């Protein structure tokens, strides 16, 4: 295996965790999550319906105002007949009965107010249902082909050994991002994340085309996805190593971006609605409903999700709130599995964010990281570097990043986001990135197999700390199951930020499903729900 000399697999001997407590934690997470799943199954959102149209082949935007056709069409259906029964039947009925050559032509007339949508009945409904299903069948065939293409690319190149080294590019200009991403891959990055423009999570539409202007990041668009994936395919062939591409299915357009990611063969996606709730003040109901549909699409597309628990620790204290990370991971595991994701697609997140002034801070980090590793043995855990205590002293920051790398190597984390010594100062210089890679390469070369040769003593500080965090997690899960997850979020349980269920952005885009609701994607996605039934037993 190429590179295995510095990235040899290893397993740090287990900390003693009571399997009964672990079982209890999972059971409580399922109880806490079920009402949310039930809400998602009985509601839809404007973004879910727009994703249906995207999967059905509707692409492009109105040249008049730049608004995507999917927005125009969903808005027009909402205005004239409502979305309670889904966009598909009224849209495909209008397509057939109006003799339109394409959904885009229908959307164009709909935007001009020329189409009166209605719910078809009888044979009309049957015809619309068949046409919609056939269109989505093409869309899912395309996603399936992309997944097969990824597998073929990995066979033709090579799958890098773990930990995968994850690097960020974020210039705002896709044509600047491409050479930077290729350079990062040549220098050792296994995963490239293109950070989104900071405004995008609150846009209720997905921008179109190749973009060259963004704030602290580059817009997620279908064309940008395609350009970057193609450039990384080139560099993967050059290096003989498959370089993965990551973006963000978060914010108000989670389901649509998930669909586009599947259609353009992205490999991993940040996908955690708690991030939008806490940091972007997106309405909790809206985003939980969106998240379920987005994750179902990711499951089908073979995309690994990354969850955002690391973010809590940027506002909450990393020692006091360690258990909130574990609770959120257990919830994300439940939601992810329920949506059909395999364990190998659950890139649960956590972070190295303890104040370095705290005595034994490294031992605490080790305990937390090893606890998570043992709780989720098959999951490709994503470990995030320090940000909160990167003070501008780049020399101290470089040392802290080395300790982060060491902790990640020792506890067998799967995806290491590489820390920058200039974190919080500027978007990394070329040299910052190069030095960061030198740091992680040294640690993996020098200590990549340390896990085999190191065992925290039974009953010692590290083991006791892990047991304590697990126990606190169970206590918090009990409280959440008693009061309800949405109430717990409203109370500021996660990230010390209060987000009530009826507050935030996007609530107006939530619609309760009526009798007769039809979503043609369901046929391709909902077959994967055995887990829920199993979880309820």
């Amino acid at each position: 295996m190429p590179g295995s000399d510095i990235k040899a697999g290893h397993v740090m001997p287990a900390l003693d965790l009571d399997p009964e407590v672990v079982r209890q934690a999972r059971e409580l997470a399922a109880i806490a999550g079920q009402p949310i799943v039930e809400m998602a199954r009985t509601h839809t959102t404007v973004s879910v319906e727009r994703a249906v149209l995207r999967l059905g082949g509707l692409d492009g935007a109105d040249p008049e105002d730049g608004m995507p056709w999917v927005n125009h069409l969903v808005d027009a259906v909402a205005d004239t007949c409502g979305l309670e029964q889904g966009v598909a039947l009224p849209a495909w009925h209008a397509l057939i009965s109006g003799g339109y050559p394409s959904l885009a032509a229908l959307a164009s007339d709909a935007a001009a107010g020329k189409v009166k949508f209605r719910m078809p009945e009888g044979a009309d409904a049957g015809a619309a249902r068949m046409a919609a299903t056939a269109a989505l069948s093409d869309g899912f065939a395309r996603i399936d082909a992309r997944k097969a293409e990824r597998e073929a690319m990995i066979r033709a190149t090579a799958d890098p050994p773990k930990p995968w080294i994850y690097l960020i590019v974020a210039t705002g200009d896709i044509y600047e991002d491409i050479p930077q991403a290729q350079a990062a891959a040549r220098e050792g990055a296994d995963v490239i994340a293109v950070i989104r423009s900071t405004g995008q999570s609150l846009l209720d539409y997905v921008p179109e085309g190749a973009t060259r202007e963004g704030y602290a990041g580059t817009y997620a668009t279908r064309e940008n996805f395609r350009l970057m994936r193609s450039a990384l395919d080139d560099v993967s062939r050059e290096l003989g190593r498959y370089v993965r591409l990551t973006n963000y299915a978060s914010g108000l357009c989670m389901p649509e971006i998930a669909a586009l990611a599947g259609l353009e063969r992205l490999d991993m996606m940040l996908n955690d609605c708690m991030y939008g709730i806490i940091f972007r003040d997106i309405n909790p109901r809206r985003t939980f409903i969106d998240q379920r549909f987005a994750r179902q699409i990711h499951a089908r597309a073979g995309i690994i999700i990354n969850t955002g628990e690391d973010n809590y620790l940027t506002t909450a204290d990393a020692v006091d709130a360690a258990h909130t990370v574990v609770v959120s991971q257990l919830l994300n595991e439940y939601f992810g599995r329920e949506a059909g994701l395999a364990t190998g697609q659950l890139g649960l997140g956590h972070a190295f964010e303890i104040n370095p002034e705290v005595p034994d801070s490294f031992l605490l980090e080790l305990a937390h990281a090893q606890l998570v590793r043992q709780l989720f043995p098959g999951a490709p855990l994503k470990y995030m570097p320090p940000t909160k205590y990167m003070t501008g002293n780049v020399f101290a920051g470089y040392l802290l990043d080395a300790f982060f790398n060491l902790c990640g190597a020792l506890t067998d984390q799967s995806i290491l986001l590489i820390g920058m010594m200039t974190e919080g100062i500027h978007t990394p210089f070329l040299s910052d990135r190069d030095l960061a890679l030198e740091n992680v390469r040294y640690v993996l070369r020098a200590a990549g197999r340390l896990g085999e040769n190191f065992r925290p003593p039974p009953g010692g500080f590290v083991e006791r700390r892990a047991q304590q965090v697990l126990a606190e997690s169970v206590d918090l899960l009990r409280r959440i199951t008693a009061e309800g997850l949405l109430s717990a979020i409203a109370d500021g349980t996660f990230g010390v930020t209060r987000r009530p269920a009826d507050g935030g952005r996007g609530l107006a885009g939530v619609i309760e499903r009526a009798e007769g609701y039809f979503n043609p994607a369901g046929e391709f996605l909902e077959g994967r729900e055995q887990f829920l039934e199993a979880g309820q037993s």
Partner: protein
Amino acid sequence: MTAADAGHTVIRPYGDTTGDGRIQVSFTLPLPSGTEEERALAEGAAAQLAAKMGLEPAMVVHAKAMGPDFTFFIVYGAVRHLVDLADVEVARREFPLLSGAEINRRIRSALGRELVVVGATVGVDAHTVGIDAILNVKGHAGEKGLESYAEIRVVNLGAQVAVGDLVARAVAEGADAVLVSQVVTQRDAHILAARQIAEAFSEESGRTRRPLLVVGGPRFDPAMAGELGVDRVFGRGTTPREVASYLAYTLAPEPQGNAA
């Protein structure tokens, strides 16, 4: 004893001997250093740059190829430049740092009601970390945020608030102060946002009492308040208590004006 203590007003950087002027810099040049010839050229270019920056003599102690097109350098050298302390301008804090209890007491006695603070990040900026550090109970740097003060009522509007919405909400809440944190600095987004806010509130004034305008963020220069049209700018490392002290000092002044 430092140079300043000794009454010197002119100083140089200190390496290991007074007046040696020695410093370290690192930078990247868009030059390859794959071959011996390329490397010699790249190092020569680095030395020339150092000399032009005033480092003389300069020593290129580290040169490393970064991919086929770039080379990274670390250079040590002595600068010729002198710093005259008499010419250094420092923005001094115009208000005393008060305790939490003192802040609450002043607000109670001067206003006889809660002091209302509306906070947000505006425009494209989605980073609430700064405003949350100042406003949330959790606070920052070991100090609790403004929410924890009994006499301060906080309305945190969160991220990406439209300037018009911020003004409307500030009016509706009867805000005594508006706090805006901006982190995003690409294309001077933070400066533009601050100016927009100042303009929006000055349009609104006349109809209502204008709240105190405070902006903050890691890349703001506290000396820019006048230029931006706001009352106060807080830069990197500001703590919640500093902001609370400023608000109490400005909005709830002591009758005799000689406390602390």
